[in-house]
């Protein structure tokens, strides 16, 4: 790919240096497009699912089934006046949405969407994901502080407290994955989940070697913590619209608000992808082999085409699993009321943290015996 790209530049008569400089940017352009598409779909999905669960119809005016509602909303937000109240700290106020948004965009680059579709394949990818996702909290605190609004400040402080308490069980739950896979590379973690339970016809399905089986408690802890991480009900204290009048983003409008909004939904998607990658076998199909390969291998003998088919299927599995996880998150949102700040803390420290340690022990024992058995 790299060579082709440079060749195109050479043929057009543009210096190779320019090609070399622009080459790393290309994945990010793809990521940005992907991100916006995902968010547009996600917002619509959330509204539709919520409407569906609350016996309503949801958006259905703009385009068929309201497909273009989100786009219309986005255009509206872009056209809106950018209001900044008098005594805000202008630099930080402007910087905060970017700080929230940028790390999430980088995390997208780290995600293995298929076997080859990984923008940045790092050896310590998992580590970087959590390092980056913590930065968004800084942005939220900054937004809360710079807004010069007491509600926003409270929202920002709550967000900080929440992030500190929930990141610890989150990371310990992830530690068990590192133990199981023996690596921090996200692609390798996915590959380690292939193979199944044994060689038999049914037990060789990939489902049986997904991390969720040994680390089920870890999955639950991770799921709860990731909901808290992306500030959704029942852990949406930083925004809590009935208490803090939408908290840290009270004072934001127009494009800056849109960035927060985008970041929130993008974070929700990325957390779901992460759950799928770590616990539900990522892009792997739940069966022993890829369906497209089994179906078409007798018809199509061109390995390249089969390879492309396989990639498409991998993408399909990842997206399907991710949207299933997102559906559950939305479903939870429709059911549960909000926790109180101190209850949230005690839930994290007194319940989730011990649970994640229990999970780590179980996984370690499991790993020890499975290596013993496999020699």
């Amino acid at each position, binding site marked *: 790919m790299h060579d082709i790209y440079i060749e195109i530049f050479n043929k057009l008569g543009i210096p190779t240096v320019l090609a070399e400089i622009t080459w790393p940017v290309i994945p990010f352009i793809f990521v940005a497009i992907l991100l916006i598409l995902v968010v547009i779909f996600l917002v619509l999905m959330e509204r539709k699912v*919520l409407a569906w*669960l*609350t*016996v*309503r119809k949801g958006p259905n005016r703009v385009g068929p089934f309201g497909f273009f509602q989100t786009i219309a909303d986005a255009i509206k937000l872009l056209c809106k006046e950018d209001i900044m109240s008098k005594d805000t700290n202008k630099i930080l106020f402007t910087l905060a949405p970017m700080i929230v948004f940028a790390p999430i965009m980088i995390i997208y680059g780290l995600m293995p969407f298929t076997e080859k579709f990984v923008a940045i394949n790092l050896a310590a990818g998992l580590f970087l994901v959590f390092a980056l996702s913590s930065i968004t909290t800084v942005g939220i605190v900054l937004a809360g502080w710079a807004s010069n609004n*007491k*509600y926003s400040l*409270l929202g920002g402080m709550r967000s900080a407290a929440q992030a500190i308490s929930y990141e610890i069980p989150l990371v310990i739950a992830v530690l068990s994955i590192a133990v199981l896979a023996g690596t921090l590379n996200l692609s390798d973690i996915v590959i380690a989940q292939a193979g199944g339970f044994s060689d038999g016809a049914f037990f060789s399905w990939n489902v049986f070697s997904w991390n969720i089986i040994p680390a089920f408690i870890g999955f639950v802890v991770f799921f709860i913590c990731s909901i808290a991480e992306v500030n959704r*009900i*029942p852990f*949406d*204290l930083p925004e*809590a*619209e*009935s*208490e803090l*009048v939408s908290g840290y983003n009270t004072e934001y409008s127009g494009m800056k608000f849109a960035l927060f909004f985008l970041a929130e939904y993008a974070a929700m998607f990325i957390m779901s992808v992460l759950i799928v990658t770590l616990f539900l076998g990522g892009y792997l199909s739940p069966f022993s082999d890829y369906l497209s390969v089994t179906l078409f291998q007798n018809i199509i003998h061109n390995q390249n085409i089969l390879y492309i088919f396989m990639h498409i299927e991998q993408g399909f599995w990842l997206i399907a699993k991710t949207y299933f996880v997102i559906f559950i998150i939305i479903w939870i*949102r*429709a*059911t*549960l*009321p*909000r*926790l*109180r*700040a*101190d*209850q949230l803390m005690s839930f994290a420290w007194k319940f989730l943290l011990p649970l994640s340690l229990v999970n780590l022990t179980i996984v370690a024992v499991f790993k020890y015996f499975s290596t013993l058995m496999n020699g």
Partner: protein
Amino acid sequence: MALESTLNKEMIINVGPQHPSTHGVLRLVMTLEGEIIKDTKPVIGYLHRGLEKLAESRNYFQYLPMVDRVDYLSSFFCSAAFCYAVESIAGLKVPKRAEYIRLITMEFNRITSHLMWLTAFLLDLGATTPMFYAFREREDIVKLFEELTGQRMMYNFYTFGGVKKDLPEGWMTKAVDLCKSMPKMFDEYEAIITKNPIFMERTKGVGVLTQKMAADYAITGANIRGSGIDFDLRKTNPYSVYDEIDFKTHLAENGDSYDRYMVRIAEMRESVKIIEQALKQIPGGTPERLKVKSVNCGCKKEDCEFCGFDVQLVGKKLNAAVFKPPVGEVISMIEAPRGVITCYVVSDGTNKPYRVKWRTPSFSSVQLLPELIKGKNYSDLMPIFGSLDVVLPEVDR
């Protein structure tokens, strides 16, 4: 020194007048230390419409539609309070059928009001979905009201000495059907909410209203029953035809937000039972039957089963221009969804009331708020304030 002063800094936060969970336009000036509430000052009066003063420049019939606006969520109750007051000054007798229609509409109104409270309360706690379900049921009842009175909220249906119109045809069947389906809906809300661990964490032991405090602040209605004081005007001082109906009052023990929730849910179920009984016992039966029977009977006797006084709608037709109740003053009390509504009317013998005074239950509940949330977390404001069921137009009048 500098650090100390920074640490001890209290923050004054202005909740409202426009805030999602103040149920209207209440302003709370709160002193917070961190997220702990140190002090609260409720500021009321943003919704003051001068309903008491307006009465003095309008005759009784002109004032009647305005009474509905005292509390827009339980219009029938305010209307009833005023009508009972004027009736007892003027010595008007109300026919039994009219009383039964009043009772049925009031109990339906109690359910709509409690459903509205439920949605607001849960919305404050962050649960959005039950709101849509509760509004769906509320819509069914409101449809019935629309069919009966012609309006969905401001009914203006009661008049001095009775009600303005008879039940429309087919109304009673619809009401019976609704009464049958409603307990199932309440079961559904309870499945979603009542035992939900987060809901229990948020409301149990929060905002405990002791019996003494409740009595001191003159709290009435479901709030005081949640604290275990058996005070229900429908039982202790039956107005209308409540003495002919068999029902229970529901009490709870602890007086926390959860108990107030439980009492209100139980009250809704009890209201359904009251309506079912009333629909069976109503003199004259269905309007279709009554019409046929009264035409056939035509005896015009006072105690006739089909055309006597008891099946009339209005005891005595009054002319708005010449209706002048005798000199006197009277208090009437009604057990409204939020507590006891008291209407005090002074008549000086002219066609305009000399003075009308409203004593509304939410006014007392708002006064209680600072005491209940002192020293609590800011997030506790919502379960406590929500469970008190305050409606601001009622506070300000």
